[in-house]
């Protein structure tokens, strides 16, 4: 601290009591404090950098407690997953337990791989067992099934058609076994192809 005679005269004149007071350190530091301070500061800096922490301008930072929303809680998530799996299992059981001999043949079922893998003989045998006539069967078929049959017919070329007609099985058929309505329909389709 400087001697009080170096104070500006103007304020000294305004406050003679104050300017006349002896100037000294108001509060002394403990002995050896300033010798130790630089090392203490470096230690503190190294400690803070080691923990990657800083000093906030307004003091230590205390993280705010967070409440996790419902969907993030483990218990809720686990129950949700279990419910989803149960629904999936129920759907699978319902699907696979669909009876094979059901008379309701919709578009989807006809188009399924299960029906598609069956041979024509198997299908005919099934239909005979079910005592179904062709009209009934075609009426039960959905649009997709009929479109598939028509597509097959359109894919037949003339030679294949003739070969089929000349097949000995046809020749062995008895006249009374042949439905003339079927033949006329078949002939009409063949003529269309030709």
């Amino acid at each position, binding site marked *: 601290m400087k001697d009080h005679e170096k104070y500006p005269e103007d304020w000294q004149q305004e406050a003679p009591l*104050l300017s006349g007071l002896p100037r000294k350190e108001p509060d002394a530091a403990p002995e050896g404090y300033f010798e130790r301070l630089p090392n203490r500061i*470096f230690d503190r800096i190294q400690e803070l950098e080691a923990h990657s922490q800083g000093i906030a301008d307004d003091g230590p930072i205390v993280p705010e407690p967070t409440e996790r929303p419902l969907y993030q809680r483990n218990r809720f998530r686990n129950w949700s997953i279990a419910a989803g799996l149960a629904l999936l299992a129920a759907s699978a059981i319902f699907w696979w337990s669909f009876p094979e001999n059901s008379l309701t043949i919709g578009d989807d079922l006809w188009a399924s791989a299960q029906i598609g893998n069956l041979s024509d003989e198997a299908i005919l045998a099934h239909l005979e067992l079910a005592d179904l006539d062709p009209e009934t069967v075609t009426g039960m078929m959905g649009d997709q099934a009929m479109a598939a049959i028509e597509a097959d017919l359109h894919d037949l070329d003339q030679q294949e058609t003739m070969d089929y007609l000349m097949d000995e099985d046809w020749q062995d058929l008895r006249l009374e076994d042949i439905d003339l309505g079927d033949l006329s329909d078949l002939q009409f389709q063949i003529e269309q192809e030709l």
Partner: protein
Amino acid sequence: MPSGGDHQQNQAEQLLLRELKNPRTRNAAFEKLVVAYQQPLYYHIRNMTRSHEDTDDILQNTFVKAWRYIEQFRGDAQLKTWLYRIATNECLTFLNRQKKRALSDLTDVQDNLAHSQTHQDTTSGEEIEARLKAAVDSLPEKQKLVFHMKYFDDLKYHEIQEILGGSVGSLKASFHHAVKKIERFLQAG
């Protein structure tokens, strides 16, 4: 830090600042900074907090912040005033926190402190010192800060302006108002 005129001090500060921003010389330069300013900053803080332990904490915080933010320091103010500004802000934060903890007005706390100091059984010199402390504690916040920096820290008005802001004229006015109030307090005995 060499004593001398402002020009020499500025040159020395510029050199120290370059060393502080150089990673190779930063540690040695920072030690020079601490040694140069630890005492004036200590008494600047101690005049406001009155406690050595609190002063020690605030002083360490001041230098740690200086270490953290030296890279961002542009050098448009002096290193000295920049350090004083950090220290002053740390003091004000500390005092505000104390005020909230005490759940009472800061003026009331310091008024009580001033009252207790004037009625202690002390010798003449200590009594005068106690009365001066009490008088300063009775000042409004800004006047107290300006008085501390001008009377105890012996800072120039343009340096106080860099620390506290405002105009030199308003700072001179604050100081003179503070001086008159203290004089009246001392005369009241």
